[in-house]
């Protein structure tokens, strides 16, 4: 792709998110989301591979449907209440419609089916943009809308955590597993959204750090399925010993950063007298933990003393930048002792 075009498209990505962040008017918020979708599409299809084009088409159809629904809901809101302000949503019908449209945009459980398919067709860098940066703008809107019905968000959240765990169980493709892990984490964020928005924001940022390190490590070891993971110790031994920790951090095991958001969310849910819901959410994290554990097993526990599970690749020096990965993976692994400071930072 021409560098000028690439710069224009990346600028479009930034502009879309900025416009949505800065807007208090539904039309402008919708416009920012549309700019975001438009700008990512050529980036997704840049390899012109049939799988990439198919994934782009699916993404475009899902996002266009969600954006049309959002526009319809905000116009209905303007018709019913006579104003376009994001903060003054009063009628339950447009509020519910907008919540559902944003759920389709970020891929929450009953509306998640496009997400694994789309991510599977992309390369890891574009997939990383799709599962981090593209979530920011819809999330900003979701945080600002006061939900009309408390049950709706709880149902979306708990279904997402369960589906994210179950869906990833039988996958051998890493990008699909990453998509299901994204769905599960978004479910946790949505569960606590109406009780503590700052906690949702904290979870989102922690998820970004964790998934960034995982995507970049897979990119460095050039792995897109479990078989390739089994030989990655021959390519980058030090990284291979770090990746299980990143995976278990995503799964939410205690001495790692990933435990922090889950811990605080469970505490908040218990405070709100939602102990059964908190129990189901905690149990659904076990489902996710299973496939993270299977990835770690394939990566590290099948090393040299055992029989090799795949042919070894030739060892070539890697030319990729590793500094961002180093910072992100240390944050992924050792941020838990800073939990009070992190939580205080996000309380406003």
């Amino acid at each position: 792709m021409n560098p000028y075009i690439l710069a224009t498209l990346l600028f479009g990505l930034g502009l879309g998110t900025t416009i949505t962040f800065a807007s208090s008017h539904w039309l402008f918020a919708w416009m920012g989301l549309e700019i975001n979708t438009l700008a990512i599409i050529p980036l997704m299809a840049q390899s012109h591979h049939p799988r990439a084009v198919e994934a782009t088409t699916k993404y475009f159809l899902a996002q266009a449907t969600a954006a049309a629904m959002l526009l319809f809901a905000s116009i209905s809101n303007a018709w019913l209440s006579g104003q376009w302000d994001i903060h003054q949503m009063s009628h339950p019908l447009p509020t519910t419609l907008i919540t559902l449209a944003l759920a389709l945009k970020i891929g929450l459980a009953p509306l998640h089916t496009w997400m694994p398919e789309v991510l599977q067709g992309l390369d890891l860098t574009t997939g990383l943009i799709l599962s981090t940066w593209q979530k920011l703008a819809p999330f900003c809107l979701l945080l600002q809308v006061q939900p009309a019905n408390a049950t709706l968000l709880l149902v979306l959240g708990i279904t997402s955590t369960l589906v994210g765990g179950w869906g990833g169980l039988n996958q051998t493709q890493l990008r699909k597993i990453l998509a299901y892990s994204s769905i599960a984490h978004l479910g946790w964020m949505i569960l606590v959204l109406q009780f503590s928005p700052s906690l949702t924001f904290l979870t989102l940022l922690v998820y970004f750090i964790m998934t960034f390190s995982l995507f970049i490590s897979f990119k460095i070891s050039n792995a897109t399925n479990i078989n390739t993971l089994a030989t990655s110790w021959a390519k980058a031994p030090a990284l291979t010993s770090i990746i299980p920790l990143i995976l278990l951090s995503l799964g939410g095991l205690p001495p790692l950063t990933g435990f922090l958001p889950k811990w605080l969310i469970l505490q908040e849910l218990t405070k709100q007298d939602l102990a059964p819901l908190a129990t189901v959410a905690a149990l659904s994290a076990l489902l996710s933990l299973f496939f993270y554990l299977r990835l770690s097993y394939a990566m590290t526990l099948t090393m040299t003393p055992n029989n090799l599970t795949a042919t070894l690749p030739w060892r070539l020096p890697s030319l990729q930048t590793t500094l961002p990965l180093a910072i992100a993976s240390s944050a992924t692994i050792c941020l838990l002792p800073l939990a009070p400071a992190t939580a205080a930072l996000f309380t406003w």
Partner: protein
Amino acid sequence: MVYMMYCLLFGLVVGLAAVASNPSPYFAALGLVLVAGMGCGVLVGHGGSFLSLILFLIYLGGMLVVFAYSAALAAEPYPEGWGSWPVLGLAVGYLVGVGVAAGMVMGGWYQESWMVCDEFGEFSMLRGDISGVAMMYSSGGGLLITGAWVLLLTLFVVLELTRGMGRGALRAV
């Protein structure tokens, strides 16, 4: 006039059913043209003549070119219209659905939803849509510039998607 408006609104709903009933691309495009035309007629009937002119000339003109090309790319030897049973079943289903929904909210919705844009037109200098355009160029200038930039971005997006003859994303197979 009222009879005319009924006809236009009926055409609008039938056109929407024609798009939604999943026919071949030709007929869906035809349905969309029908919807846009009828919608412009409804707008004229309620005092938005300038708006409907803009919609009809620019939007429909641009969309027709796109539709002509995409219909040519996706040409089928046996296109399916309302003559085939699944499509007809869907269309009838949608029309019945609209009828049921209209029957349920009958009497409650149309007073507020269809209002004439300028009441007491003799007392105002400008029509509503013309003054809206003036507002867009004065206080809505920032929005206009952003909109123009987004259209330019869309052009680049389309060019980038369709470049490269045989290996582009859009091609006749």
